[in-house]
């Protein structure tokens, strides 16, 4: 439905990908680990390899959690934009299907957070 207005109502979105200096916004969420209160948001180059995301980006976001060192990355399950997803570590984010404002969620089986509280 269009906005009820007194005239033409067309405005640019504020978060177009062009506004992020060659990066695209990417959201991450480590499921069942709510010590981190909300998903993280980072501007990342679409050509970044998925392996770099796992080895360089995610530790910077999550390594304060005692469970982080325990993650067995072979067992991790992922969704990208709410679809089941098997990443190709060697391919770029773009080639793995990441777009601007994509949401990556991951589950780490066997790790239940602080005192099993999913925090």
């Amino acid at each position, binding site marked *: 439905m269009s906005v009820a207005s007194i005239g033409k109502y067309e405005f*640019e*979105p504020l978060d177009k990908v062009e506004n992020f200096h060659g990066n695209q916004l990417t959201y991450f969420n480590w499921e069942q680990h709510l010590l981190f209160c909300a998903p993280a948001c980072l501007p990342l180059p679409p050509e970044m390899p998925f392996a770099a995301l796992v080895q360089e980006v995610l530790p910077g976001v999550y390594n304060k959690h005692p469970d982080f060192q325990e993650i067995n990355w072979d067992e991790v399950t992922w969704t990208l934009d709410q679809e089941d997803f098997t990443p190709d570590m060697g391919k770029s984010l773009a080639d793995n299907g990441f777009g601007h404002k994509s949401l990556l969620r991951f589950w780490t089986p066997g790790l239940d957070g602080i005192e099993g509280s999913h925090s």
Partner: protein
Amino acid sequence: MAEKRKKKLGIKQRYSMLTRGLGWDTTYQDMDKVFPYDNYEGIIIHDWEGWEDPFRLTMDAYWKFQSEKEKKLYAVIDSFAQNNGHLGITDARYVNALKLFLTGVSPLEYQAARGFTHVGRQFRGVGPRVACQMQAIDELRHVQTQIHSMSHYNKYFDGLHSAPHMHDRVWYLSVPKSFFDDARTAGPFEFLTSISFAFEYVLTNLLFVPFMSGAAFNGDMATVTFGFSAQSDEARHMTLGLEVIKFMLEQDERNIPIVQRWMDKWFWRGTRMLALVAMMMDYMLPKRVMSWREAWDIYFTEAGGALFADLARYGIKPPKYADIATKEAEHISHQAWHIFYNYTHAAAFHTWVPGKEELDWLSEKYPTTFDKYYRPRLEYLDKEEKAGRRFYNDTLPMLCQVCQIPMGFTDMDDPTTISFEVSEYNGDKYHTCSLGCKDIFDYEPAKYVQAWLPVHQIYQGNCGGAEVPDVLKWYNFNLGADNLEYNGSPDQKLWDEWQAHRKKA
């Protein structure tokens, strides 16, 4: 022979002359051109005279009444300052609730003054126009008296020095700011539905009462006195809210679905904003009034239930997602406090883990959820802080496109899993935190794609620089004083010194 002097006007006549008598129908210009805003929203009004003035107050009586209240208020504020009233509060942690109020809520009073000034010009009916103009003046008075009441604390405590500047820039203050921006950029009838009805009528008891009774419980007489002084104004504002709804519903049945949609929207936006009040009640008041859960049950479930039962005769249903909001009452204060605990290095107030007795109180008030989901996390955070490893979240959060709160709220039936919703519009994704916020986006996407989301703005380079300290300076924070953990803060040190001094004396 001189004409006989006429008798003084009777109250009713005087009232009519000083309100309705001041309006006229234009003849040189079409009324639709003079009042272009009061029909584009689709609300059909057949007879503006059908407006029942909810409070029969004329401007001259209004001035007299308000100036009496003002005199009393300023006498109390002066005596509070002269007697070092700040020493009488329960604990310096309490002042953080005032910081949140002054930066988050007081600027809304000013926004309300602007909004009511605008709609007070735009209605062609004289009744609503006069009511809105008076409310505009009330709101201006409220922002002034709040600043004056709280300015005393600014002499001693951090984070109170730049409220309007912060309101326009700081990430969490975009939550209340965008709420009002949304209302003020709507048409006049939606504005009144959002602010006068959903906010002032349905939800005000969950905002105003907790803050003011919180102030009373915690020895803050300056704020309590402001609260009393505003109370009679608030009563008038609530009446206006109910009157505008009844007016729209009685004028034409085609108005019903429009009003219902606005109620659904503004109820949901209101409950999102009240997450700030929820955490204040459960976490920030050293002496607690009641839990958020209890406040919700009394003021929304019971009082709101009676209101919507009354409105049912017009074909109005309780707000959509009221059931979800009621489930949220069990969780939302804990989840909101956790968001601020994560990011208090970027906030202009302090956070902390409640003491053991306070945790016990929360366990008692939330018997089925607190120990299961929240207490272990808080005890862990406490242990880390005491070991010198105070936890802060180093990465900026994902925000909801509509309410602009970090996406920290869970699915209420699955409180360990974040709730995610997404919409596509013109090829871009827009994420929302809940079905309530998603519905709002989906109905008017062209409006919400313009949202100024603080995290995205920082990454675009529009907020003072690339590093967090640059952004915080742009917010006008005094780093190391306004932000960070309460334990070890300058506020705490000063308070402890005062207490030690008092013991000696």
